[in-house]
């Protein structure tokens, strides 16, 4: 079964970028535009990896992560955090909440793929 990735970012540009990035791989990508929506999608889709933005309106990444960790069915879901703020304080907050890894925006595409590939298998789709 293909791994399922949930991308949660208020920026449509970033969601489209992630869709483009993972398109060559045999995986399913589902999306949400904020933490609140992300929790609902995670509950329904049971993703194998969540790529979560730190700074979002409605519900930010940190609040969503705390709620995710309180949910018995979702607390083990690996999270790769995206953050624009590379300050040590922000990174320490992210680390405390037990994310699997983080990537500072803007990121090299290969860096994000490498980090995601350590969490879920990323296998190139067979040519049609």
């Amino acid at each position, binding site marked *: 079964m293909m791994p399922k990735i949930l991308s949660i970012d208020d*920026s*449509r*540009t*970033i969601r*489209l*970028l992630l869709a*483009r990035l993972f398109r060559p791989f045999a995986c399913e990508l589902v999306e949400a535009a904020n933490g609140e929506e992300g929790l609902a999608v995670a509950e329904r889709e049971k993703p194998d990896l969540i790529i979560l933005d730190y*700074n979002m*309106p409605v519900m930010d990444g940190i609040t969503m992560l705390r709620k995710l960790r309180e949910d018995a069915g979702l607390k083990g879901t690996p999270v790769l955090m995206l*953050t*624009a*703020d*590379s*300050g*040590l*304080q*922000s990174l320490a907050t992210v680390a405390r909440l037990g994310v699997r890894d983080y990537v*500072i*925006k*803007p*990121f*090299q595409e290969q860096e994000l793929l490498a980090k995601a590939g350590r969490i879920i298998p990323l296998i190139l789709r067979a040519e049609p």
Partner: protein
Amino acid sequence: MTLASSKPDLRRICENAFVEVFGTLSSLSATAPKSASKSSASETLDQITSSVPLTGQRLSGVVYVQFPQAFVTQAVRLLTGLDGEAGNANALQEDAAGELANMVAGRVAAQLATDGYPCKLGTPSVSRSRGSPIEIQPGVHHGRTDLIFEGHRLSLELQCHYAVP
């Protein structure tokens, strides 16, 4: 620019943030403009200005980033792979401009934190204009830098107030 030596060098922070973000984002090379008065073809055209609020105990302010629309169109194509009408949609251009400014503001905030002025990023807002420069609010400390990417002049302005100790 700083008014006291203990304050962060806002201009240097702007320069570093700009180069780090756009250097990572694309293979395009960033260069400082050869002359401050020299106009590029794109700068008289439509501009998109994104502003990101910064709030902290010792400092509050706004990061403004001004992009020519043509640059944003190019960035949308580069980032999303969308071309044609889909890539030219106003909403997507404004989203991309807001996200790019958010990345720049993130680097600014990280440097300010290193300098002893930690602050959090707010939600970006975006406006369009035709060649209007970023206004400097009265009484603010500010730093500014311009970079040229393949003929597009991008401007970054950091305006802030320091808390009274």
